[in-house]
């Protein structure tokens, strides 16, 4: 057994240990912490699998935003834990364990019995890279070859935000999400929230820009921008906008809207929906991505902030 394999086994052991801990620990709050660490280890595995684009997404979502979302919910529900409902009985547990073991065993068998001939689309992707003149194969797939998926994914984000907003209570309808954080002008948090976002914005734009030729992209860059925005909100330097504001809604639909327009444009002038004219492929993709990075940053920030809670009327 080589050192590399040994390391992989250590990595997997730590990750699965955290997974079990997350499932079994009593307090939900601790489970959320465990899940953040778990997300980080999953990002390590993706690097090891040579899928750096996914590792970036996982680091941004699994380790960062999802964790914060779960922690926030766990902190709010904390008081309700002692009167938690009864756990399922022994029979249910045994049945659940059996089902889970069977599922895992079936998947494990499938992994072990994977056929020797390996289907792959990598050569096709590389052979067609000229069509967009972008060097990152994953961005090519996301933005050109399977652009429909990416467009619909943005629509899903939009639907999620509509769903979250529609959960607001009557008197907070169209109001601002989350509590108003008070800034402590002498505080260390305000200091950090003034110092870090400029750096973070540069790094976010870098990750977005480098996505054309290296791992990176609009989603990962947008996640960084969203976290910087929320940092400023948490420090009390700025407030969440009311969700009824015009410009906010415009930013939210800008990305998918432009995507859709370009798609229809392709249907009208070119061979099909979302077919980019060859000479304009790169500028069009970049234009869509610029709109999308803003949309994604706004959407992720608002998804984390949750349903509106404060009325806009004073």
């Amino acid at each position, binding site marked *: 057994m080589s050192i590399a394999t040994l390391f992989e086994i250590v990595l997997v052991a730590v990750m699965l240990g955290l*997974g079990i801990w997350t499932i079994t620990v009593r307090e939900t709050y601790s489970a959320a912490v465990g899940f953040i660490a778990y997300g980080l280890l999953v990002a390590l595995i993706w690097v090891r699998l040579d899928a750096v684009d996914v590792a970036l997404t996982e680091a941004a979502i699994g380790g960062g935003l999802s964790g914060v979302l779960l922690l926030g919910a766990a902190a709010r529900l904390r008081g309700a834990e002692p009167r*938690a409902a009864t756990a399922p009985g022994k029979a*249910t547990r045994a049945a*659940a364990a059996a089902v889970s073991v069977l599922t895992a065993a079936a998947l494990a068998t499938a992994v072990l019995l994977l056929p020797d001939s390996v289907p792959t689309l990598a050569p096709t992707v590389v052979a067609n890279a000229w069509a967009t003149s972008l060097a990152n194969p994953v961005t090519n797939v996301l933005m050109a070859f399977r652009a429909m998926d990416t467009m619909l*994914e943005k629509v899903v984000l939009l*639907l999620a935000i509509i*769903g979250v907003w529609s959960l607001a209570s009557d008197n907070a309808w169209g109001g601002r999400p989350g509590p108003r954080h008070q800034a402590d002008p002498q505080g260390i948090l305000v200091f950090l929230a003034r110092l870090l976002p400029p750096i973070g914005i540069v790094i976010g734009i870098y990750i977005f820009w480098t996505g054309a030729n290296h791992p990176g992209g609009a989603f990962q860059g947008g996640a960084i921008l969203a976290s910087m925005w929320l940092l400023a909100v948490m420090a009390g330097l700025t407030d969440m906008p009311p969700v009824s504001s015009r410009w906010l809604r415009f930013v939210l639909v800008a990305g998918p809207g432009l995507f859709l327009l370009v798609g229809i444009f392709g249907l009208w002038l070119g061979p099909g929906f979302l077919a980019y004219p060859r000479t304009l492929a790169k500028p069009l993709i970049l234009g869509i991505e610029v709109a999308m990075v803003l949309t994604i940053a706004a959407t992720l920030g608002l998804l984390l902030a949750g349903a509106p809670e404060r009325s806009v009327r004073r």
Partner: protein
Amino acid sequence: MSTVTVFGLCAAAAVGFGLYGLITNPQLLRKIIAFNLLGSGVFLLFGVVGRRGEAAGIGNDPVPQAFVITGVVVAFSATALAIALLLRLFQADGSTTLGSGTPPSVRSDPPGG
């Protein structure tokens, strides 16, 4: 054991743990976490299969990679929506589970302020 085998088995185990947690945990937030665990296992399976498809100088088949990125984003949206629903349920009803028993007395909001 190759990289693919180790991580493939790990992904299968993650799916198993996630499924068990999803079924047995009465707390809704815990169910959401367990579901995310299950999802990460499924994504890893994609990654393992993509790793086998390394070709043309790319270490991992870009098509499954793109699928996983889309999947992660959709899973995050679903998680955010689920948590918003849960917080609303807690606000309206004070419960964090979907237990049977007494029907929840939904406190209606004060008429539009």
